[in-house]
């Protein structure tokens, strides 16, 4: 959280009442959404309602022991984040306080109150290399230089969007801290590596465009059947235990974005620890560098204060937009947006607002769409192109998708990955239901797959979808009469569908090879199953009994393709073997 404004305190008020995270103050001169410091300990809070001389504040920290009469200080500024080099490889709480700094400042493994810290290290010196020279004209958003932020990412220093711009007077290479001016303009404006931005306000851009490139995730069911675009939005709803978090982690690990912002919103502490421990040891599939070098983590676990849970989503998306402005493709994972909605509900009920559906505030739908609309494929204000893709997990109570958060989310997002408890119970992972899920980006993205993977990508996918659809219909009959009562060709279809499910749709996130599957391999597996299908039906037509077809030794090998490193050769051999063994039968 930004501290630069602490000395510009405008007016003091006094606490009138305290009820959990909601505090009211009397005689406080404040605007909506101003950040205030509450009580003797200076707990951070935000103004959320003003009525007469009573101001209502949501406090981002535990309020035990705080009482009426204690002072409230107004900073006169809305909640902002510090933007600049040092955000990658960092882990923040919901109001952008770095958790590692808090640990050393508090000297405790437990989170204490009233300790603040800037979001980026204000002292650290960075190696600045200007990309403009004296006499150049620069406008807001223009890149004036670069800083090697991590091994993977070159941080671009930009003229802040609220500057006027002008002619460069000085620009020199050297070591600077983020608060020192690196470029000076003729109108006296000084560009530093540090910007502040209010989290609830989207950063400006020139134009939002139709996304045409997929965010390749290395997950077969996602890339193969339900792709998301760079700049797209997706929702992953599912009951507990169906694999929301693992899917989000897989995306954070393997998606081919330049930058990943991972927001753990109201989720488990141990899960965040897993990310902190795992990511530095994993390699980015694109660059081979540690994954942390492109990742920013925001952890507001379920037991951390509820108001900060409400703000963590905004903190995350603002950071994502900042890297987008540099021309990067950013992917933001929010796990889980339901906890965010619940935080809104909790605050709303403490304000005694009239509730909408299931106790959620009436503005739930508006807030959700505002958030998802900040995603997109943009032309930035400096004319570059960048994207923010948003993937939100949803945790519907009882796994019931008809509840308000899921429904309001589905009205906005274009990709829907429905997680299914039944699949999870039989350890079919990822437990994404292929009959319910959809992606509205398919048509936009097909040209990319045709060009970069294989000409008949759309046709192969359609074939798989058809087989799976047919299986779903046949299963209903099987439930009544048993498999053996079906005609032989339908039995064979079921067999093919079984391989589609086991070899293609299932993917082991914990297997070192299978965890990431490039689109070429995804395609390869599909063609191998297709080969089995074609050859098997030929054999069937030639009069071979279906039992014999099912019994060929090569077919179960299909399930092993996923774990093969040298998959290309393996698939070719397997296709030949399957063909040979089936043709031997007639």
């Amino acid at each position, binding site marked *: 959280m930004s501290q630069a404004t602490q000395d510009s305190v405008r007016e003091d008020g006094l606490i*009138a009442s305290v009820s959990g995270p909601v505090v009211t103050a009397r005689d406080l001169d404040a605007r909506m959404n101003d950040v205030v410091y509450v009580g003797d300990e200076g707990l951070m809070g935000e103004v959320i309602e003003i009525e007469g001389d009573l101001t209502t504040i949501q406090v981002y920290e535990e309020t035990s022991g*705080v*009482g009426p*009469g204690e002072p409230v200080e107004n900073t006169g500024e809305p909640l902002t984040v510090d933007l600049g080099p040092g955000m990658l490889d960092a882990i923040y709480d919901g109001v952008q306080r770095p958790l590692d700094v808090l640990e050393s400042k508090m000297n405790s493994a437990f989170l204490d109150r009233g300790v603040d810290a800037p979001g980026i290290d204000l002292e650290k010196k960075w190696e600045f290399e200007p990309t403009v020279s004296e006499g150049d004209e620069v406008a807001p958003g223009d890149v004036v230089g670069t800083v090697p932020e991590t091994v993977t990412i070159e941080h671009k220093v930009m003229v802040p969007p609220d500057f006027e711009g002008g002619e460069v007077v000085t620009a020199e290479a050297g070591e600077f801290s983020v608060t020192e001016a690196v470029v000076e303009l003729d109108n006296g404006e000084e560009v530093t590596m540090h910007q502040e931005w209010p989290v609830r306000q989207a950063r400006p851009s020139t134009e939002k465009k139709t996304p045409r490139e997929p965010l390749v995730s290395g997950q077969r069911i996602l890339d193969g059947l339900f792709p998301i675009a760079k700049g797209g939005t997706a929702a992953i709803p599912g009951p*507990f235990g169906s694999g929301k978090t693992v899917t989000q982690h897989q995306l954070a690990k393997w998606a081919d974005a330049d930058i990943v912002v991972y927001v753990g919103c109201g989720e488990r502490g141990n899960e965040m620890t897993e990310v902190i421990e795992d990511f530095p040891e994993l390699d980015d599939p694109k660059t081979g560098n540690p994954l942390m070098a492109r990742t920013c983590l925001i952890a507001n676990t*379920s037991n951390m204060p509820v108001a900060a849970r409400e703000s963590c989503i905004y903190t995350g998306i603002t950071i994502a937009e900042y890297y987008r402005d540099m021309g990067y493709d950013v992917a933001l994972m929010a796990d889980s947006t339901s906890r965010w909605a619940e935080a809104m*509900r909790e605050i709303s009920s403490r304000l005694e607002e009239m509730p909408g559906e299931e106790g959620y505030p009436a503005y739930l739908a508006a807030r959700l769409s505002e958030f998802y609309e900040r995603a997109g494929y943009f032309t930035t204000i400096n004319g570059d192109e960048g994207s923010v893709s948003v993937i939100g997990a949803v945790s519907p*109570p009882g796994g019931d998708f008809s509840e308000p958060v899921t429904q309001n989310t589905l009205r906005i997002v274009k990709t829907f990955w429905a997680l299914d408890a039944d699949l999870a119970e*039989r350890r079919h992972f990822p437990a994404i239901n292929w009959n319910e899920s959809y992606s509205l980006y398919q048509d936009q993205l097909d040209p990319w797959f045709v060009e970069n993977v294989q000409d008949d990508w759309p046709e192969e996918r359609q074939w798989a979808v058809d087989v799976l659809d047919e299986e779903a219909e046949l299963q209903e009959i099987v*439930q009544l009469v048993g498999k053996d009562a079906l005609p032989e060709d339908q039995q064979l279809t079921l067999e093919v569908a079984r391989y589609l499910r086991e070899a293609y749709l299932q993917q082991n996130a914990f297997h070192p090879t299978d965890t990431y599957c490039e689109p070429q391999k995804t395609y390869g597996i599909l063609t191998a199953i297709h080969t089995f299908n074609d050859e098997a039906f030929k054999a069937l037509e030639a009069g071979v009994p279906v039992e014999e077809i099912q019994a060929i030794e090569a077919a179960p090998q299909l399930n092993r393709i996923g774990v093969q490193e040298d998959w290309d050769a393996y698939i070719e051999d397997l296709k030949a073997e399957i063909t040979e063994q089936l043709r031997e039968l007639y």
Partner: protein
Amino acid sequence: MKEYQTITEISGPLVFAEVDEPIGYDEIVEIETPQGETKRGQVLESSEGLVAIQVFEGTTGIDRNASVKFLGETLKMPVTEDLLGRVLDGSGQPIDGGPEIVPDERRDIVGAAINPYSREYPEEFIQTGVSAIDGMNTLVRGQKLPIFSASGLPHNNLALQVARQATVPEEEGDDEESEFAVVFGAMGITQEEANEFMEDFERTGALERSVVFTNLADDPAVERTVTPRLALTTAEYLAFDKDYHVLVILTDMTNYCEALREIGAAREEVPGRRGYPGYMYTDLAQLYERAGRIEGREGSVTQIPILTMPGDDDTHPIPDLTGYITEGQIYIDRDLNSQGIRPPINPLPSLSRLMDDGIGEGLTREDHADVSDQMYAAYAEGEDLRDLVNIVGREALSERDNKYLDFAERFEAEFVNQGFDSNRSIDETLDIGWELLSTLPKSELNRIDEELIEEYYQEDAETVEAEA
């Protein structure tokens, strides 16, 4: 300390009093009734001139003349290593007739959140000796793994079995064995149930390394909101200050949530689903998230909360919110129970999220993950086929399907069913797993690494089964 005789309203567990000084939120209050009885409470809402107080011991006997005293501090738990072996009531007073407790320290029971950055990821396998847990839903140190049960099911026996048998298989050369302790928090359980636990603790000598908090069914409901916090504060002290590996058993979380609802209703709050307060997720998280490990500290807090699902319904808000916070769940199944399977754990809906990192070579055994995966898939398939058998009969099914049906039968009868007194090592558990898996043809074992199949698959198992 000022005393007030200014009570203006008494409603359910709540008392409203006028004050002329600022009172801190969450502060502790003592109320003395005209009969000389002292009751404790906590400030729920504090505004200028008026406070709302939640009384732990019930408001019976309080009238407008009762005197109210604000202690100027939030609720604290006196902690010391000497608590081990003691039995306390639901608000932390000793009830075992033992000596007075001399605390080392008094700790705030709300408990600050562990900084996620300071946590250590739990990956030390705890052997509970129960195959359905060790083999299929492995528990690790620092995990929170609830038991989802329902009325009339033997969840207490399972909890006791785990408390009795839980060990960490010793590593060679590791002689710095940290001690193991149990903190038991009972909320609203009956005297009989409490006796059952106490007798077992005494019989097995476990009481010496346990701290017991009991809020019984006829104790005030509001006190239940405090009991688990006292228990967890004690557990954190033992774990992170005294290096114990603490297993916290909380039963029954359903009663805790009922108490939350009661307070919410008395405060006339806008209710969430089924009348439970909208902040129940946050409230439960503040309990469950107190499990874990901290980098650089020896001890750990592992939680096994027990809850009874009203109407066996796991979409009820209590199990639902719990499942979203905890790292998995163990389901006790009514059908299995009536079939005489002990413990009646249904592995299919059960889950341990931390399992993957706690098992495998060097931790349990190299084949653990694959075996567990394969058994899940095979049992799920067998379960599905049972529906079909009811319609078409076994004869109409293929040989392959019949093998899966047999597998499901034997899985329940031999793997899950072991009795509450048997303690199986992880090797035994996995060996039984292989014995069952070997009744399926090798080509069906598509989730197991080929090398592992070579090593462990029992070639003759299939024929033996066929002859029988």
